[in-house]
């Protein structure tokens, strides 16, 4: 029991600065450093990485906080990404616990699917709720996903390094 508490504390101490660093990068540096007019999404990829290495519970908890910070970086209420990334963290964690092999190819496929799903959700919600043209929103989503994937390698290796520092075992 005490050992589990200690392990949870260690995880929180290691992952919290990682979350904050990615949030600061996403909401300050990369809001100015655009590519093809788009800004990248770093936090969702980190969710894929943590879920892949730590499983459904940790993936879900990390997704919850990453989602809240992503919503904050979007200057919007903590709803859309908070829900999306929590669910994605849990779902990718389940895949990691069952079928996915812990390696870069799995991470890359997970990240691509995650980013495309987020883009599709954003684009469709704007089409349905605000009457935005699908061609425009889809193009933005695609460019956003491509730009984000440039950071797949550093996010993967940092996530893997942090998870190795925590030691073996899954679950908060």
């Amino acid at each position, binding site marked *: 029991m005490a050992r589990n508490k200690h392990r949870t504390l260690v995880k929180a101490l290691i992952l919290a600065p990682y979350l904050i660093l990615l949030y600061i990068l*996403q*909401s*300050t540096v*990369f*809001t*100015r450093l655009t590519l093809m*007019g*788009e*800004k990248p*999404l770093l936090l969702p990829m980190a969710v894929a990485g943590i879920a892949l290495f730590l499983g459904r519970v940790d993936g879900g908890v990390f997704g919850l906080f990453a989602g809240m910070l*992503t919503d904050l*970086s*979007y*200057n*919007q209420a903590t709803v859309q990404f908070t829900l999306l990334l929590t669910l994605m963290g849990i779902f990718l964690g389940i895949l990691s616990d069952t079928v996915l092999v812990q390696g870069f190819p799995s991470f890359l496929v997970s990240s691509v699917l995650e980013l495309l799903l987020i883009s599709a959700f*954003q684009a469709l919600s*704007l089409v349905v709720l*605000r009457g*935005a*043209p699908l061609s*425009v*929103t889809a193009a*933005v*989503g695609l*460019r*956003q996903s491509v730009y984000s994937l440039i950071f797949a390698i550093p996010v993967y290796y940092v996530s893997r390094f942090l998870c190795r520092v925590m030691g073996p075992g899954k679950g908060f």
Partner: protein
Amino acid sequence: MKELISKKGLYIIAAAVAVAVIAAVSVALSGGNAGFASLLSEPFFKPVKSAMTSLVDSLEHTYNYMYRFDEIEAENQRLKARVAQLEQEYREYTEISEENERLHNLLGFAERHEDMSMEPVTVISWTASNYSSSFTISKGSSSGIELYDPVVDEYGFLVGQVTSVTSTSSVVTTLIDTTTSLGALFYENGETGVAAGDFELFKSSRLKVSYITDMDSAVIGATVVTSGSGGVYPAGLVIGTVSGIAVSSSGLDPYAVVEPSTDLTGLSHVYVITDFAVSE
């Protein structure tokens, strides 16, 4: 010793006296210039002396480098510190100069709009979203900022509107955001329309003016200002200039494409209009 003094010594003394006398006479005859000894020895000693001087200089330089290294390093540190101090002063001067310019520009705007109260704020961060255009500013309700307050730049060009407020910060949604919609009029002829953000124009940082009462007024280069209708924005704030005419996808509604006058990419300081006289 005795012989030296008595014989050779006398010769030597005599020779010395002779040399001295000749030297004195030659100096006296040449009007105070170098004596014959100098003239005779110069061709031989000059290159030797030059070489020796160079050698000594070189040795002295090496000596100084080796033994005064600490002193030189300390001096280098002092100079570096001084350079850093001067650079800091220059940065401060530049900041003050820029702030002065901004306030000067704002003063011109404020003099033209004495009915307005303005709160200067700093832009903290921009949204990470690719579908909206908003930024966070450094002040909130504790500084008198309220929801839907208009925001302008130092020239008085419209930037956007406050759409979220906390006690210490606020979110400003810019005029190109797709949720923005406000009454506009063409400055030159007073024709009215509705300025709004558009998904297709968003990426090129432009907005559109539709529902124009007379499309002939929407000529390229025409200035678009706020109409003041609705009382949310003061009348007469410059939105931008017409850069093109287009038709909606349905092909039925023509609209003017407007380039904002404010430079949205370069905003660092903006001004929230906290109070103004409503002119309906």
